[in-house]
């Protein structure tokens, strides 16, 4: 398991956050106050998408009620305000990731688009016939399919680094797969289906020794870990706003400036140009070169509010709470008969995937739903990973900072009910 000290270790030095208090945190999330089928909602599907704090909801409302205007193009007051809020968020994200420069932060729709952008603009010119792209067994489909498409187009090969039965990357085998034809490595920081935290720093070291760039899919890491792209030394990093307590439809691609500078644009349109004639278009400078068209302005500003919210919470208390919750839930569930936890990596964030002998995850999900408990049942967009563990699907409870031990108790009794139905 990850040591609490590794998690969110250093928050930006603003006002010192109050000690972590889960009940106070819960009060910030209006959606959690409801009942479902007459039972208090127990939301344990945070890896799919996280709930939004009041601060984010209010920021979105305020934006549309007060500041709404297009950015980078109006001379008027509203446009000035929305442009400023948009660009301030870029700076916030830069600090959140500890990137060196604001222009290294590109706003996209989410991790999926971020990976597609990198595959298309960075990798396409670099990958040729018989070249290789290296990923791992535990990737989300969004970190498999864009590379597969590229490899198909170029006659290149997708290589896949294996994992052990606990769901940990086999580093030696990973390193052995780094070859003279490897053009890029793309790995999850945290696996959405297993919770495994990958040793990104060592992965990057191994790849950089051979001058291979590394993209890190941070969709599941950003909501739990302190991210420092300069410390990781990764070349690209992605995140999805909606998993980080922000709006859907907004995400980030971080890229080292030198790489982004050299890349051709991803899409053409307004905002990404400096000047256009029918003969020639001069592209805009970074990061606007990659932000064609009117972006999700409200989403960006909402993402900024989510980051502010997260940073207002005591990082060590939060990390300790999340880790204790995972350990507690792991202990409780491991004691249940017929239940097997899938993914027992030593370093994990709050994901608990499990299967129960003789009971399909869908049936588990339906029965828990009637108890007011929201989990995910399925392949988690990671079918090759399910194949690796020889299961068609798993049930997955995933935790966020607002989940409690009582909710773990509800999950446990819900699962006992499932066992009762399928005796």
């Amino acid at each position: 398991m990850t040591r609490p000290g590794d998690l969110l270790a250093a928050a930006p030095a603003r006002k010192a956050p109050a000690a972590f208090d889960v009940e106070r945190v819960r009060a910030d999330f209006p959606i959690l106050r409801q009942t479902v089928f007459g039972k208090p909602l127990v939301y344990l599907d945070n890896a799919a998408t996280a709930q939004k704090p009041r601060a984010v909801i209010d920021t979105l409302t305020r934006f549309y009620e007060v500041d709404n205007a297009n950015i980078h193009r109006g001379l008027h007051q509203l446009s000035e305000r929305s442009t400023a809020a948009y660009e301030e968020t870029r700076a916030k994200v830069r600090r959140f990731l500890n990137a060196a420069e604001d222009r290294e932060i590109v706003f996209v729709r989410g991790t999926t688009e971020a990976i597609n952008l990198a595959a298309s603009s960075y990798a396409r010119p670099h990958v040729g016939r018989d070249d290789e792209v290296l990923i791992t067994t535990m990737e989300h489909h969004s970190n498999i399919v864009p590379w597969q498409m590229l490899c198909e187009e170029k006659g290149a090969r997708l290589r896949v680094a294996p994992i052990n039965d606990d769901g940990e990357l086999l580093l030696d085998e990973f390193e052995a797969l780094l070859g003279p034809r490897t053009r890029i490595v793309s790995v999850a920081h945290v696996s959405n289906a297993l919770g495994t935290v990958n040793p990104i720093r060592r992965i990057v070291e191994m790849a950089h020794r051979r001058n291979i760039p590394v993209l890190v899919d941070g969709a599941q890491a950003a909501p739990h870990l302190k991210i420092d792209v300069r410390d990781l030394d990764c070349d690209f990093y992605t995140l999805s706003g909606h998993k980080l307590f922000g709006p859907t439809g907004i995400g980030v691609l971080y890229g080292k400036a030198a790489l982004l500078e050299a890349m051709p644009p991803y899409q053409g349109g307004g905002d990404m140009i400096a000047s256009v004639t029918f003969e020639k278009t001069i592209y805009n400078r970074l990061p606007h070169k990659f932000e064609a068209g009117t972006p999700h302005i409200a989403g960006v500003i909402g993402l900024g509010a989510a980051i502010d919210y997260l940073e207002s919470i005591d990082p060590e208390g939060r990390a300790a709470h999340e880790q204790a919750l995972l350990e507690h839930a792991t202990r409780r569930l491991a004691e249940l008969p017929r239940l097997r936890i899938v993914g027992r990596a030593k370093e994990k964030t709050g994901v608990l995937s499990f299967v129960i002998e003789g009971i399909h995850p869908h049936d588990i999900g339906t029965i828990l739903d009637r108890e007011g408990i929201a989990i995910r049942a399925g392949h988690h967009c990671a079918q090759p990973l399910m194949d690796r563990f020889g299961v068609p699907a798993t049930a997955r409870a995933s935790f966020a900072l607002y989940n409690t031990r009582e909710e773990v108790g509800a999950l446990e009794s819900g699962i006992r009910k499932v066992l009762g139905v399928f005796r």
Partner: protein
Amino acid sequence: MASDLGDLYQEVILDHNRQPRNFGDLPGANRRAEGFNPLCGDRVTVSLTLEGDVLKDIRFQGSGCAISKASASMMTETMKGRTRAQAERLFQEFHRLLTEDSGAPDAASLGKLVVFSGVREFPIRVKCATLAWHTLRAALDSAHGIASTE
């Protein structure tokens, strides 16, 4: 168990889930289709021997939830010996049973398949209950079909 859960997981369904009937490959089958539910990744293969217009024999294979397995199992029991036209009528009635509040107008002809009426209260599970049925249809429509619940 909450009553709608009890309606969903009736003893007959649990029994077919535990011990699916007509499960496995059908040697000598002349029609076969694979069904896929993209929502959950469940797959089912339905194989049959069609003699003239009659479904002489039918089996299914695959993995799925209790609802999809029991539905496939009971479907194969019901379909054995039926004509194509009868199979299509059953398909229509079964679908109505799952989706229409008033239930199937001709529920009587569905026999014990009416145990699936509980699925109506669980709209996202309708696809589980119909996967094998769509697959059967695909098998009847072409020598080698692939069916999807989407």
